[in-house]
């Protein structure tokens, strides 16, 4: 099945529309192991390095994709659309203005945007995106979400390395969904038989910038921390909620996006805090790791409020800033180990 790529710095994109069009949705995640030099010709180096990595991937791989769609995630995504238009060779490039607000007017607008996107896809690719096809795609998506919820819940009871969980979250947004369901079903059987949660690991909630490569998860592991909850787009934000299988599927997709854990690009930010609080009530953790990628503006702006409130609520929390690099940064490991020492002395 042909790949349709999307550039989405959160979980804004409705993959089900692409599935209904007969393509496999492929989330562009960049490649931290590849130099950003190609993108740096068109985007200044103080702009989010992940977004530059995505542009690098877009320029190198666009011919593997039948088309590319953007969503309104962070402002970097929006303003890169024009750059992509000039420098990424593709026959179909489309920008969906997913709203930052969550109210009736915003949702009505979102629905119109999705219907407009469907029409453009139908016209360009000569396909028909029917309600039945959308409903089937939603059903498949829900199966993925259900399996991922079961797998993610095992993190706090079984010995599941951070990087193993992270690898699955990447597959969720890049693999053919039918094959993905089979893979997740196998993983579920495998993970259920793993040893219990190891005594030498501290369970933490992981929040902040989206983590797109496994090495970051390995840094946590090196420091003896195990992420058992998160609110990341490559993570719980992707599968925390089901999409309604009742009524008009486009309306169901809009409704779905009003219920998922909110990223920092949405307003008001209290919704994100509430979700984190609910995670912390559901799953006992020893602390919170709040990591932000250098030059990640939405998280930089959310950080003072979020960390202030989480600390006020009595949670032990560390903030770390990371570079966009696969190198295991000993400075970060050291800070996380210090955090672990604080946790262990307070227990």
């Amino acid at each position, binding site marked *: 099945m042909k790949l349709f790529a999307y550039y989405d710095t959160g979980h804004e994109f409705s993959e089900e529309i692409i599935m209904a069009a007969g393509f496999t949705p492929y989330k562009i995640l960049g490649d931290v192991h590849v130099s950003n030099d190609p993108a740096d010709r068109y985007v200044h180096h103080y702009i989010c390095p992940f977004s530059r990595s995505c542009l690098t991937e877009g320029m190198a791989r666009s011919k593997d994709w039948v088309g590319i769609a953007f969503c309104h995630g962070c402002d970097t995504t929006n303003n890169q659309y024009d750059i992509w238009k000039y420098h990424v060779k593709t026959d179909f490039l489309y920008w969906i203005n997913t709203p930052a607000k969550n109210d009736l007017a915003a949702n009505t607008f979102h629905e119109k945007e999705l219907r407009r996107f469907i029409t453009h896809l139908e016209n360009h690719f000569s396909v028909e995106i029917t309600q039945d096809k959308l409903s089937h795609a939603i059903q498949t998506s829900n199966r993925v979400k259900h399996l991922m919820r079961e797998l993610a819940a095992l993190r706090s009871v079984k010995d599941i390395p951070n990087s193993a969980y992270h690898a699955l979250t990447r597959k969720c947004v890049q693999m053919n969904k039918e094959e993905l369901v089979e893979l997740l079903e196998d993983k579920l059987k495998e993970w259920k038989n793993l040893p219990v949660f190891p005594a030498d690991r501290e369970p933490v909630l992981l929040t902040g910038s989206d983590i797109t490569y496994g090495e970051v998860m390995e840094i946590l592991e090196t420091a003896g921390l195990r992420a058992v909850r998160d609110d990341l787009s490559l993570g719980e934000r992707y599968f925390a909620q089901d999409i309604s299988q009742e009524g008009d599927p486009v309306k169901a997709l809009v409704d779905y996006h009003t219920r998922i854990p909110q990223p920092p690009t949405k307003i008001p930010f209290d919704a994100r805090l509430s979700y984190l609080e609910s995670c912390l009530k559901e799953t006992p953790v020893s602390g919170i790791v709040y990591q932000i990628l*250098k030059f990640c503006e939405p998280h930089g702006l959310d950080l003072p409020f979020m960390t202030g409130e989480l600390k006020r609520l009595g949670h032990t929390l560390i*903030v770390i*800033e*990371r*570079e966009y690099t696969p190198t295991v*940064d*000993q*400075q970060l490991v*050291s*800070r996380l*180990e*210090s955090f672990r*020492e*604080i946790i262990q*002395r307070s227990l």
Partner: protein
Amino acid sequence: MLTVGIDIGSITTKIALMDKTKLIYTDVAFSGYDMARAWQDIFKTMLLKTGTKEMDISCIVSTGYGRGSVGIAHKKITEISCHAAGAAYFYPDVKAVIDIGGQDSKCITLNGSGTVSDFVMNDKCAAGTGRFLDVMARALHVELGDFGAMDHKSKKPVIISSMCTVFAESEVISMIARGESRENIIAGIHESIASRMVSMMNRIGVSKPLVMTGGVSRNKGMRTAIEKKIGLKLLVPNEAQVCGAIGAAILGGA
């Protein structure tokens, strides 16, 4: 009971030998490229000078960025916990510790019993660290040890606006070119680092007694700049530079 703390930082390696709560010996040497060599040399020197036998040491604790390289260490503890324990050794009621190290600066709060309750460190950037001072000393052709005295002679500190060490160096070179006195530039550098430290302290919320540890604490100009900005008196033990190693030795006996 003899315990040893070895603190391998990015610039210097420190060692402390303690007999229960009594400080017996301290030493400082450059870390250089070979961290393993650095701790081995300073450890052998300590054994020689104090007449201690390795078998008499009940616990060796390594700390600092090179802590993983100390093969003989019984425990490896991060410098955050060690600086806190070291500061609490000299000032048992300490509530906060600041340390400006070679590649990072930190602000630690303590819960009253010498254990860490929270900490904050500089962003991933050399600005506001000991390395920043090194770079500036080179640009000004001044020995780092003279910074404190020269700051004292400053009449009007300059304002360093650049947030980045590399750009700040360019800014300093521009100031030299336009004839600004080195004393005023040095005082400006201290104020720039103090601003960063104080903004970290504000993020975490510090209260007195406030202790400064690490080698930079020997720089009077730096201390004064921080005290002015935070409005609190800094307590600085004579052994401030080896506080991390002392803390490690203390935690080794805990």
